[in-house]
């Protein structure tokens, strides 16, 4: 069977074993979908590396890339910049062949049908397959286009994501390390936008002390970027996982939030009366805790999760945008001191220790 050109996140084939086909980002979204009923991922699909290969080959772009880099002196930063710009312009401007465009449109239409509301907008982002690159950011991982409206724009943004494989740094790195440009592929994710009332991150372990029975939830109004980038002091909740009790709660004064614009996001001031209001209700905190527990259970280790909460007509819904292993504490405990408890103490001796 030929590899599919598009693959919905909730297709069981979109999983961690399919990174070469859908890239790391899309594969992890597929994994999240499989994490259980408590976890909702905004619907979307992967534009696969097979699609990318077929596109490049149909438009002879692979040959062009090879030739254009071959004639470039990779020791000359200016020359690499020029080659990068040329290659990216070629990829971005080349129309998809009809068969590929139809496939993409069908997938996009199917997504539109699943998404309520009149204004259908998607996020288009690159999903790199090259997990071996030391710094994933230059492989285009950061290429994210929010609020993309209409199929024409979707096509263009998809190509822009594909083109991000050829940033100057990526070209230089592959040349230096002897990687073949043909072997490095890219997938793109197209995902319904969440109109977030609140969003943030959560850790399924208390990052302060490694206590795994807690979830630390950080939250702000609007989209999550302000929290992720640390531009705002978010509301912070420490929740005891087994019993869902909020054992610590800090409601901060939240001055700015991230909001959508025509083609991206911007920081906007938060109106006075909402600044000191908690950006999550107790029920929402409980639901987020359930989500955190389900994801951690799925992966079998502590996770660092990005989430968003939408609210329409009094109904709210929690979406998980991303999850990755929480590493800070794990590294500390693995190299940390051994447990101070001696093994063979009797109950009476242990009580004595406390008296």
């Amino acid at each position, binding site marked *: 069977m030929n590899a599919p050109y598009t693959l919905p996140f909730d297709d069981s084939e979109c999983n961690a074993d399919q990174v070469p086909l859908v890239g790391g980002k899309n594969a992890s979204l597929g994994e999240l979908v499989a994490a259980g009923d408590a976890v909702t991922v905004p619907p979307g699909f992967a534009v696969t590396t097979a699609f990318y290969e077929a596109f490049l080959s149909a438009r002879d772009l692979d040959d062009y890339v090879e030739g254009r880099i071959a004639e470039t002196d990779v020791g000359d930063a200016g020359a690499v910049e020029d080659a990068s710009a040329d290659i990216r312009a070629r990829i971005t401007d080349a129309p998809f062949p009809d068969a590929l465009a139809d496939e993409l449109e069908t997938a996009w239409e199917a997504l539109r049908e699943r998404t309520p509301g009149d204004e259908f907008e998607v996020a288009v982002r690159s999903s790199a397959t090259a997990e071996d690159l030391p710094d994933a950011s230059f492989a285009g991982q950061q290429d994210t286009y929010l609020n993309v409206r209409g199929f024409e724009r979707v096509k263009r943004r998809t190509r822009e994501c594909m083109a991000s494989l050829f940033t100057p740094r990526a070209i230089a790195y592959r040349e230096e390390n002897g990687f073949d440009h043909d072997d490095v592929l890219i997938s793109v994710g197209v995902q319904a936008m969440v109109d977030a009332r609140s969003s943030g991150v959560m850790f399924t372990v*208390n990052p302060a*002390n490694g*206590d*795994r*029975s*807690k979830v630390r939830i950080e939250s702000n109004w609007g989209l999550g970027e302000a929290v992720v980038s640390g531009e705002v002091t978010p509301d912070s909740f*420490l929740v*005891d*996982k*087994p*019993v869902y*009790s*909020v*054992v*610590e709660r800090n409601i901060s004064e939240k001055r700015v939030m991230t909001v959508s614009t025509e083609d991206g996001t911007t920081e906007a001031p938060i109106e006075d009366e909402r600044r000191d209001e908690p950006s999550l209700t107790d029920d929402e905190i409980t639901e987020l805790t359930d989500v955190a527990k389900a994801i951690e259970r799925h992966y079998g280790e502590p996770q660092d999760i990005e989430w968003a909460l939408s609210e329409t007509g009094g109904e709210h819904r929690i979406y998980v945008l991303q999850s990755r292993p929480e590493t800070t504490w794990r590294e500390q405990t693995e190299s940390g001191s051994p*447990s101070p*408890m001696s*093994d063979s103490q*009797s*109950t*009476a*001796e*242990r*009580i*004595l220790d*406390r*008296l």
Partner: protein
Amino acid sequence: MEDSPTTADDTPGGARDRFPHAGELDLPEALDGWEEMYPEYFQFEVEDERADYERDRFWFWDKKDSTDPIMPWDMAISAQAWQIAMAQNTSRVFAIPPSMSVDVRVIAGYAYFTGIQVEDEDLLAERAEIFAERSEYYYDNYDALYNGIWLPAVKDIGESIRALDVPERLPDYVPDSDITEAKGQSTQTLDVIRNYNRLTEYALEGWQRHFEFLYLAYLAYMQFTETCRELFPDISDDAIGKMVSAVEADVFRPDLELNDLARTAIDLGGDVPDVLLSDRTPDEKRDALARSEEGREFLERFEAVEDPWFHVTYGDGFHSYKGSWIDDLEAPFNHLESKIERLEAGEQIGRDFDALQEERDAVVAEYRQYLTPDEREQFDQAYETCMTIYEYAENHQFWIENWLHTIIFGKMREFGRLAVNHGLLDDPEDVFLFDRFEVAELLEEVCETWALGEGAFVTGRWCDRATERRRVFEAAKEWDPAPALGDPPEEVTDPLMQMLWGVTTEKVEGWLDVESDDGDTSRLEGFGSSSGRVEGRAHVFTDAKNIDELEDGEILVAPLTDPAWAPVFPRAKGAVTDDGGITSHAAIVCREYGLPAVTGTGHATSLIETGDRIRIDGETGEVEILEKAAATQD
């Protein structure tokens, strides 16, 4: 509190506030003469050197047990029993290293405690060794010791007391058998004196049993809570409580038996539900039931469970005058009535025990899953010990304070009636107005009067003293005792003081605030003992007598609760108590019913009035009075 005579205004210029010393208290005149009602060794400042010792210590009112003043005879199974049985358990039986003992004093029927700690390093080390060995034996063999020895022994004590023969009155002439069997004239008077002495001995023996496992149970619980706090920093008291909930303790049995009886009444049908729901007295209901076949069947079932399960004392078991379910069936019949009503309305009564256990086990399993293998081993050991022995903290309360006390008080009333029938007392209840040594004297005088023969002079002294003491005792009930005496410690460190009486550093500071009248009177803080936040109408009860008046959805406010209160919890929206920590009865029952509870607030029953709108947070332990009853009336 403004008219309280116990404020510490005259504090001699120290930097920190202190409570008054006992000698500085200005007791109301109506209490004059209280001293002669209680043994001298319980009184403060009776000799100079001991007064120095007393003034050097911090004493707190044992509000848990002496919420109301304790009658002189009742002291035999409270303060007098504590002074020996409670003190020796830590000092000389298990040698709990830092806690030597508890010294007891009494003011107008209210008990005051001071914890005596061990500081000497050598002594601590010596005691640690003894403690390790002895407590380990008890922890390892709990089941065999409790079920094999303790429970049969306690039942034996109760049955032995029941078997003590107390005549209603001594006979005009001794029976013929005294002659034909040459009994040495007559054993009748000797039996009265001997059986009374036996009663007090059995009562003290019961109290030795009371403390047998108690501190070990609390220490196992403490071990578990501390282990949890280490392994799961910031864990709430409520979460720890959940892990030790759904224990099949005997203390829940009275309520469970009432549930069964309510279901039986409906199953039997006929006139049984109607009679039980009718507006009759318990005796009238029993008479009416005896007239139908279904009714007789019901009565038979009722009588099959009333011993032991309806030997439930009103109050906390330390007050003979409050009675017991079995003496006054008003409460169990009222509970039956409301349970039948609920069943008829299609509601569920009682706890879904299996579901609770499942929920508890799931919570425990989840916490364990977050631990490393080493930590898990440590957790399991603490948890298993706690779960094995902790039921004792509940069970002993049923068997001693409820079942045994009901029997002891009942037997004492027989002696009271004997004294009444010989003219030395006016009312059998008056026997409790005399301490246990005085009652021996009273009964001896009964025998002497009888021996003097028909027409002998009958003294009026006991009746007069009873009248006088009754007056003083009633005044004592009205008195508001000082929460503590003397100089509070900078920090309360005694683990037993904190666990059993909820005496913490913050609590003591709170008392000082109220004493000096500058505390916030719309807020209280206690232990967040069962999670959840609710708002509602408060209903304040001072004892369990009329708790049936609690309306659906009200928040129960009580000094403390015990098994007699259990049947009303399903109707309550939440509970607040003056005393008791997260292991108190109210805390445990509320967790089982999923109701928010704040325990050990210190003075909820004095700050809150029935009708106030209050908000309670069973997680943070905060109680807020939102609107006073007086304000809501207009």
